[in-house]
């Protein structure tokens, strides 16, 4: 029987009740007394010099309360990059200032150069239109294409950066010569040129922020759509506005999806705080979807050449990549870490590859900033690897399943030091591959292909075996690699006098179901009902300093902190119980919610101990503080390494080029699973996004830097008809060796493993249909691209 509560149970989500009845509270749902509205004036050109901004007419319009321009923020700090990356020659990256409002130049369509505060949104919009009319922006040639940006030193996104290159990074630079030599000596070399298409995250809740200021105390409050309220507080307070951290509370209430795009601090957050201070009234801004398209940090956007050296029978000897990675107009907070340490370090995948070298040049362009989006660097590495391995199989006439089996690390090789800097603690990649093969009924493929053919369709099958590094991250390691923040997390477990529990966590839930899962874990450990445990998150005035949720870290890092805090509660409870039961502390055991004296029937319930801690009449006050509340901070010893094997089957219509995903099988190893229902849901969502990337989503800027895919009319989001039911399995479990729950993280897996499986399946289908001249089709593998590839 599956468990019905605690760790491993598919407990139903408690947060669903409010979401299903319209009682969730998202930022834009809050209407505060005397709240004013902010609307931004955004550049309609990709690159321009800001001339005079005449505020006279707009200021006099009905309801207008204040107008801000870049001039108002020229003396405050910029929004910083969170990682310092050094180039191959040791020089630090170029780091232009990212101001609250554009000053001097606008650098992408949507770059805000002014803001209007008015009584209502409609009034602010009217005045913003007037202000745009009264602003002089001298248009400059747009820099859109990365290769052109690097080649033309005369046209610069940032005047002080001559070749538009942020850095030129080599990983690992010391290994370069050895990799070159191995590649030269390899009996066969496969080369692929790949584009990892730019994606727009599109969390369904647009970004929104409310600033408040209390002139009586000098306290600020920012309510905002954030995945990490403490990080946002640190950035906006310490780096941008210069507010003491203790005078700023950041609240991230119900947040409607993030996928990375709500990790970062954005200028709108600083603006509403400054405006609230100036007006002494709350100021709210809510993005329209068009603004989300133009200004949320985008994802991916790599142009890569990958070379793979191998033996004629498919043993991988060396991998070398050269990548141009777009960072857009400004450095978003983690934009420099994503194409480097979240990408280059994964370039040996789950394989034993002796020689790997990764080169990444990041390039400024007049486009929206690019940063981490679900998977963040790891999907790019996985895509390059899994595509080139399939190409190797094709060139050498080898079986893609057998080749992967031959190159996968074997269970006896763990812990495994990869040639690109990671120490994989545990895994069994053969097991997930075997499982996927069984789930997909690979043996029955030919029969299915024949049935498809009878219906006039080409059927293909694609495989991807992948690994990721999650549970971000060991602070001492990332510090050496350039991170400017620590990546621990924290939790406080407060046992209330009546025995129920409030747990304050640094992780933030914006769809993941932490309120349910974290409560399952605490309840299991303390032997109490889940309903006695509440999880509090998203408010810096309530929770300990934690780093939030991204990089599949919530459970592995914050969940570990929480587990350690619970252990401290149990340890203190034993001391209290020893006193009450007149026994030695070492004789007290805790099981099923009871503190007992070993070998006797003497016991106190958890509730009795909690009550005693707060009504300490019979209590060892001389040696023990009253109260029962413990905090733990946890900094992970290593990354975690989820891995898996995905198999996709597609049908291709040769006449139209349309691709349909007809089956998708996922065999994942997430270590121990806390709530199977939620884990499956995370994989479904990730695969849905991965199919979106592979088949549909294409962010297109024209040569003038205008975003042609700036609405849901133009940017094809996956819809219910575009995807199949997914077949998901998580039974292959090699628990993480360095966290007490043995968990690895499941949030990004689907988006990492799926795109190459889809594309490999399409190429397979075309080859089976006799279109053997097709080597590769870039994502999104749209009908027009497939048709063009077929018809050559």
């Amino acid at each position, binding site marked *: 029987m599956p468990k019905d509560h605690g760790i491993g149970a598919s407990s139903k989500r408690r947060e669903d009740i409010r979401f299903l009845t*319209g009682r969730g509270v998202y930022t834009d749902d809050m209407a505060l007394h005397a709240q004013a509205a902010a609307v931004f004036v955004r550049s309609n050109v990709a690159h321009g010099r800001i001339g005079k901004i005449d505020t006279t007419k707009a200021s006099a319009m009905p309801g207008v309360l204040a107008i801000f321009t870049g001039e108002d923020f020229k003396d405050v700090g910029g929004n910083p990059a969170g990682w310092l990356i050094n180039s191959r020659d040791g020089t630090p990256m170029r780091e232009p200032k990212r101001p609250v409002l554009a000053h001097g130049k606008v650098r992408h369509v949507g770059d805000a150069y002014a803001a209007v505060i008015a009584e209502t949104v409609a009034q602010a919009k009217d005045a913003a239109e007037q202000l745009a009319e009264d602003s002089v922006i001298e248009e400059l040639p747009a820099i859109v294409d990365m290769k052109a940006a690097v080649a033309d030193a005369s046209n610069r996104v940032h005047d002080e950066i001559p070749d538009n290159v942020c850095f030129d990074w080599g990983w690992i630079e010391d290994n370069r010569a050895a990799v070159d030599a191995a590649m030269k000596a390899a009996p066969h070399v496969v080369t692929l040129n790949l584009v990892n298409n730019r994606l727009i995250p599109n969390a*369904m809740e647009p970004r929104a922020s409310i600033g408040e200021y209390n002139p009586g105390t000098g306290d600020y409050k920012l309510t905002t759509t954030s995945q990490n309220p403490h990080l946002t507080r640190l950035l906006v307070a310490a780096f941008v506005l210069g507010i003491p951290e203790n005078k700023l509370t950041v609240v991230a209430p119900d947040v409607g999806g993030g996928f990375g795009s709500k990790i970062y601090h954005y200028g709108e957050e600083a603006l509403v705080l400054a405006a609230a201070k100036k007006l002494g009234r709350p100021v709210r801004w809510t993005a329209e979807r068009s603004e989300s398209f133009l200004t949320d940090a985008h994802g991916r956007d790599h142009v890569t050449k990958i070379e793979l050296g191998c033996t004629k029978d498919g043993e991988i000897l060396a991998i070398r990549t050269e990548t141009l990675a777009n960072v857009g107009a400004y450095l978003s907070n983690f934009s420099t870490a994503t194409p480097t340490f979240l990408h280059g370090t994964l370039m040996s995948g789950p394989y034993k590859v002796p020689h790997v070298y990764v080169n990444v040049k990041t390039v400024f362009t007049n486009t929206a900033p690019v940063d981490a989006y679900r998977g963040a660097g790891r999907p790019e590495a996985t895509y390059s690897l899994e595509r080139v391995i399939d190409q190797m199989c094709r060139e050498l006439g080898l079986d893609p399943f057998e080749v992967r089996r031959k190159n996968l690390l074997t269970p006896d090789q763990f812990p495994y030091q990869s040639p690109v800097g990671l120490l994989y603690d545990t895994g069994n990649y053969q097991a997930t591959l075997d499982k996927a093969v069984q789930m997909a009924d690979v043996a029955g493929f030919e029969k299915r292909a024949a049935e498809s053919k009878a219906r006039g369709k080409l059927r293909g099958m694609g495989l991807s075996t992948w690994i990721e590094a999650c549970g971000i991250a060991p602070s001492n390691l990332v510090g050496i690699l350039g991170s400017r923040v620590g990546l621990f997390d924290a939790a406080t477990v407060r046992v209330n006098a009546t025995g129920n529990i409030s747990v304050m966590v640094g992780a933030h839930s914006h769809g993941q179901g932490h309120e349910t899962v974290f409560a399952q874990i605490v309840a299991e450990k303390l032997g109490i009902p889940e309903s006695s445990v509440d999880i509090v998150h998203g408010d810096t005035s309530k929770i300990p300093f934690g780093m939030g949720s991204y990089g599949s870290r919530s459970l592995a890092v914050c969940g570990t902190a929480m587990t350690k805090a619970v252990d401290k509660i149990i340890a203190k409870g034993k001391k209290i119980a020893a006193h009450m039961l007149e026994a030695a502390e070492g004789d007290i055991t805790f099981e099923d919610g009871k503190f007992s004296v070993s070998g006797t029937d003497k016991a106190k319930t958890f509730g009795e101990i909690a009550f005693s801690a707060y009504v300490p009449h019979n209590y060892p006050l001389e040696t023990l503080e009253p109260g029962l509340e413990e905090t733990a901070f946890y900094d992970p010893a290593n990354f975690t390494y989820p891995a898996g094997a995905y198999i996709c089957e597609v049908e291709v219509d040769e006449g139209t080029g349309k691709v349909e995903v007809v089956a998708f099988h996922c065999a994942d190893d997430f270590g121990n699973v806390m709530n199977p229902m939620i884990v499956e849901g995370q994989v479904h969502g990730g695969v849905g996004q991965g199919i979106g990337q592979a088949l549909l989503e294409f962010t297109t800027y024209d040569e003038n830097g205008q975003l042609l895919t700036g609405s849901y009319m133009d940017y094809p989001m996956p819809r219910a008809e575009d995807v199949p039911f997914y077949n998901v399995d998580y039974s292959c479990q090699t628990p993480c060796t360095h966290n007490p729950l043995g968990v690895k993280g499941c949030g990004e897996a689907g988006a990492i493993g799926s795109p190459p499986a889809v594309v490999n399946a399409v190429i397979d289908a075309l080859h089976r249909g006799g279109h053997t001249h097709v080597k590769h089709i870039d994502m999104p593998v749209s009908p027009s691209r497939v048709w063009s590839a077929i018809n050559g």
Partner: protein
Amino acid sequence: MTKVSMTVNGKAVSGEVEGRTLLSSFLREGLGMTGTHVGCDTSQCGACVVHVDGKPVKSCTVFASDVAGATVKTIEGMANADGSLSVLQQSFQDHHGLQCGFCTPGMVMSAAALLAENPRPTEHEVRHYLEGNICRCTGYHNIVKSVMAASGQDVSALAAE
């Protein structure tokens, strides 16, 4: 400003609106009923779906003044009279048909409209009907499952093909 009156979730309501006030704004700001969400500005995402005189409507595309006198139902009116979840809402919870919850009100309202028209839809019919509702979290798997289960179908073995 003109006065507009309508029935929302069985209650007579009225308020002052501008000609340009959308039904979604009237519900959210005029009546403080923030369960109806606005996720886009092109009538594509479906987070704002409500029922107007029994039909599913994207409330961000309708002027409040155009539905004067109409009977409107929103997500806040979907639970049973005793406050418990309706069969459809309960099915979404049972089958994990939501994650961040932002698209959920529109999904539930569209799905309810589907089941009213077609009490036992096939997988294809559910996917086709929900074409106007975008979800970024779930990959739709559990949404489709929730709707089919709410119609009384056995969904325990659902996977691709």
